[in-house]
């Protein structure tokens, strides 16, 4: 055993502070300049890096202070996309669902400066964070490409360029999220093919986050997704996906969601630790990464810190149980 076990992390997004929300609204109305907004986004990024270090997380994220939606952010920066009208996602929540209207091309890096800035603030590794090609496709309208596969592969080429740039900038973890991967289980082959384009030859550890869908419908096929680590929401599902691993052994690293991000209530230390223990039945401690189920952007700063702290403390507790050295 080494101290490099049960490394803790988060999925990617954190809540935007009120001053940033206000500035984003004002920016949309032309009342705040791009420069001023960027300054505040950097401030908020710095605050989240500090908070993650204070809580004791091992692998950090930039918190996505500069992003609204995980698809729209990239769609805004890629050529070939145009903004769509408002579509409801749930309740009173709406988003501008982007439209693939022409040939997809990445004119310039999209996240590299943010990665470099966040990484400059800490000695701990910061993950490069991308949205996967299949999810980009599935959460966009496609008017330009004759088939969904064609569109996914075109997106993959653009995302690959970004992944290469992140690696060149020093990213040792690159997360390519595919929360839509189970939208059409019959298309898992397209998602795998597209991800292969993104990750081929990368030396960084590659991760893909998957959440809120029928994971059973794509298991075990999803084990062929060419990434090193699958990052799964588990707590929200009362860990039922783990039972799938009884029949078909899980063969990758597993980032395991041990706190539910959609409820305000805080899990107890023991509940979270039990989540880790459940994961350890299937994946060894050096390949198991405890984290919250999903991005925390819908939680308050306080709730987020509390949820992350439970993750960190639960990992410490289980490390101690395993007789491992607890990192300082």
């Amino acid at each position, binding site marked *: 055993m080494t101290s490099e076990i049960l490394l803790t992390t988060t999925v990617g997004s954190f809540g935007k502070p009120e001053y940033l929300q206000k500035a984003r609204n004002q920016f949309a109305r032309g009342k705040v300049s791009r420069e001023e907004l960027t300054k505040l986004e950097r401030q908020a990024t710095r605050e989240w890096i500090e908070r993650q270090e204070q809580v004791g997380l091992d692998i950090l994220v930039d918190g996505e202070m500069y992003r609204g939606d995980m698809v729209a952010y990239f769609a805004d920066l890629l050529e070939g996309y145009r903004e769509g009208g408002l579509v409801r*996602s749930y309740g009173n929540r709406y988003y501008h669902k982007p439209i693939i209207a022409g040939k997809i091309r990445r004119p310039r890096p999209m996240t590299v400066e943010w990665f470099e800035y966040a990484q400059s603030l800490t000695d701990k590794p910061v993950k490069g964070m991308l949205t996967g090609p299949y999810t980009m496709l599935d959460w966009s309208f496609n*008017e330009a490409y004759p088939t969904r596969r064609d569109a996914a592969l075109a997106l993959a080429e653009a995302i690959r360029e970004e992944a290469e740039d992140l690696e060149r900038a020093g990213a040792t973890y690159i997360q390519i999220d595919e929360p839509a991967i189970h939208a059409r289980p019959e298309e898992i082959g397209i998602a795998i093919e597209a991800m292969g384009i993104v990750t081929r030859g990368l030396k960084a550890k590659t991760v893909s986050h998957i959440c809120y869908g029928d994971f059973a419908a794509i298991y075990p096929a999803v084990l062929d997704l060419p990434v090193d680590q699958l990052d799964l929401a588990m707590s929200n599902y009362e860990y039922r996906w783990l039972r799938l691993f009884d029949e078909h052994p899980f063969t990758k690293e597993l980032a395991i969601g041990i706190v539910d991000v959609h409820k305000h209530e805080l899990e107890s230390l023991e509940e979270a630790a039990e989540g880790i223990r459940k994961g350890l039945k299937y994946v060894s401690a050096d390949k198991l990464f405890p984290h919250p189920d999903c991005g925390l952007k819908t939680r308050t700063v306080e709730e987020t810190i509390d949820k992350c702290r439970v993750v960190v403390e639960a990992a410490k507790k289980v490390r101690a149980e395993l007789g491992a050295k607890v990192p300082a």
Partner: protein
Amino acid sequence: MKTTVIGAFPKISDDPGGQEIRRALHRFDRGEIDAGALDQVFDGATRAAIAELEAAGIDVINDGQIRWDDLFAAFARSWEGVSRGPLERFYDNNTYFRQPIIERAVATGGRTLVRDFELAKQTATKQLKAAVCGPLSFATLTAEDKAYRTLEQRTLAVADALAAEIRGLGAAGATLVDVEDPAIVARPDLISLAREAYDRMAKANVPLAVQPYFFPADGILAELASFPVAQLGIDIRSRHSDALARLEPLRARTVVLGVVDARNTRLESEGEVASALEAAARVIGPDHVWAAPTTGLEYLPHDVATKKLAVLVKGARAAMGVLA
């Protein structure tokens, strides 16, 4: 040949004046308006949706389902024994719903949607149809069931509750009720169970239109033909489908053909719509074909939904011209 719509219409639009519901819900959440004021906004938006559907030339309209959070929300809120559970994506959409949780035996007085239907009826000048969720979709998407031991028992219990709702809608004047049931095509292995559930709902003696969508019905057309319903919906756009070439078992049944894709902004041409309708009409007869979007237009931005309605109506009229 008639035109119709299925499911929910966009609740808001990108126009500056088109976001009343969104604002009202925010104000309600902040305690700035009461439930009565929020109701008035919903009523106003319902009237506006009806007016828009009628102005577009749709022959048989619905109320736009402006109050529906998701397919199950109204029922899960009002039925005894049911609560609303975790958020989940609704099939292959980036749209969420709350999974029902069945705490104990399901019961309803059958008046869940009567008030909404009566309001719409006061406004509509064209034939108005009602809608309920499908029993198989409700049962298969339930997160937790503490009352029934099997999926079969759960499905049939939900069908009985829906039969009560359909009876209530019939008593309020509904002459046609859509039963939105994507699980029928998502889970074709359960088609026999679905059929049994529809037998129960048919006892309400109100004409039903089964509306499965999102997935092809190609493999179960013969089974669907035996359903005790007045109309069968078929989505031919969401995925590759050969249903148009397999309609023979549905001869003399009324088919609601989903000919404009309610989940993609790419606009069909009038000719594309017309030729699909003509192909169906040649097999089952023009009087037995209704033209519709594949599912609720709420998956589209409002301005695109409006364009889809226009091409639906034009395509249907073009088909009727050819077939006349």
